[in-house]
């Protein structure tokens, strides 16, 4: 796998490979790059931010309250696209607990009056 390290502005080009159960990182300039490369290879995670639509109109911005596995992002976005919020929420309110078993809660990042 080829990727770019994002731990600092250097942006080292990393090549990550697995041989016989051992993951090796090549191209990193420091130990942080090795750690990042291994994590990106074996369990890449992202915090997801998106919008939910209100049942009666309007939109509210949301985020996952922690990083979720990268391969769950598409499922979560599909869930978000079909979800309709039917009540008012305030910044920080949990809207859904671990939807699509993504392992994180979806919380509001702005206030929503319900429409």
């Amino acid at each position: 796998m080829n990727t770019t390290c994002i731990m600092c502005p250097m942006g080292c080009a990393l090549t990550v490979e697995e041989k016989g159960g051992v993951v090796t990182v090549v191209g990193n300039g420091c130990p942080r790059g090795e750690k990042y490369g291994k994590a990106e290879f074996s369990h890449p995670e992202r915090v997801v931010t998106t919008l939910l639509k209100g049942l009666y109109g309007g939109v509210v911005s949301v985020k996952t309250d922690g990083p979720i596995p990268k391969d769950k992002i598409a499922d979560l976005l599909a869930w978000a696209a079909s979800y309709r919020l039917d009540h008012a929420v305030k910044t920080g309110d949990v809207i859904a607990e671990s939807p699509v078993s993504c392992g994180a809660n979806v919380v509001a990042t702005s206030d929503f009056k319900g429409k």
Partner: protein
Amino acid sequence: MKKFDVVIIGGGPAGMAAALGAREEGATVALLERDDRLGGILNQCIHNGFGLHYFGEELTGPEYAKRFRDKVLSDQNIHVFLEAMVLSLTEQKVVRAISPTEGLIEIQAGSVVLAMGCRERSAGAIALAGTRPAGIYTAGMAQRLCNVEGYLVGKEVVILGSGDIGLIMARRMTSEGAKVKLVAEIMPFSSGLKRNIVQCLNDYDIPLRYSTTVTRVTGKERLTGVYVAPVDEKMQPVLEQEEYIPCDTLLLSVGLIPENDLLTGTSVEMSRVTSGAVVDEYRQTSAEGIFSAGNVLHVHDLVDNVSEEAYIAGRSAAKYVKGELPFSVTVSVTPASGVRYALPQKVHTGEGKVKLYFRVDKVYRGRTVVVTSAGEVIKRKKTLVMAPGEMQNIEIDKSLIKGDVCIYTEE
């Protein structure tokens, strides 16, 4: 006429931080914002990554804005005027604005902080060739329509420019179900953060082509496609290699310009490099009592730096009113080899430390940043890598300043 110690024009991140800075020094504050809520562009930046430096945690734009807004709105000595459009500013520091609720607002300010932010360069500004159909948006406009108003502006998208807003919108449009076919960047490098290239483009397999630009657009009522071509070393498109990409939407992320129209007709000295005012370390302009901070002063890449800068401007504006702003000889700060601009452009002699912010003119690896005063080296700093898209800073000791300051890079 109303009277306030400090009048702040603009209620985005810069204006809010300036208000809090001015309150720290006990000033009465008027904060004028043309939108119907405080927060500025942060309100439409629903992605995260804000506040790592300022708050030590990762926040989304609306969350970052809320931290400041809650403080501003709970302070009885900050008078917030919403939907208030500032029409004029005089050197006598009279501010005139209009709002639907108050009509004409006239304020005599003790000092003024400019915090109007910046605007996006548009299709006209880059002399985009071809027809003028619907479907061509600046990236920030599309972001507002999507994230605040709830409208997706198109289904098949080409993005010109790989600045952070362009990259963020590539991911945003994809998340909302659109297909981003290409991000074209005229430069051989991106001015966006590495993290955004990885997490906004690579994660979604969105192609990014460097040294490539949009040469013309087609479509009568709605955009039907764009032509792209590589550019040569002189930045001229190689038309023999032009390629057609069908799409219904073109997003432009081609630069930001500080919005300083209000200063037309004043004596405020402007920088031709930053398109903002020339300031000293208190962020005071050449017109006494008029201060400037945030993207109206120079375009930032991190809001954290905006908050820090505006806080300084707000405090200084309040100190000016109290007559406590130190007066001393100023020296000029000029950029040389490898440095495109440095800010503040003027520094007072005296005690304490001052942080110089600067941008380099291209990507440098393993260079040393050198600061001289009256020809003598007063600071050296080794760097691993510096890119034009990432604002740098270096702190110097004011007591070492004996004459004009110069900042440059060397091997």
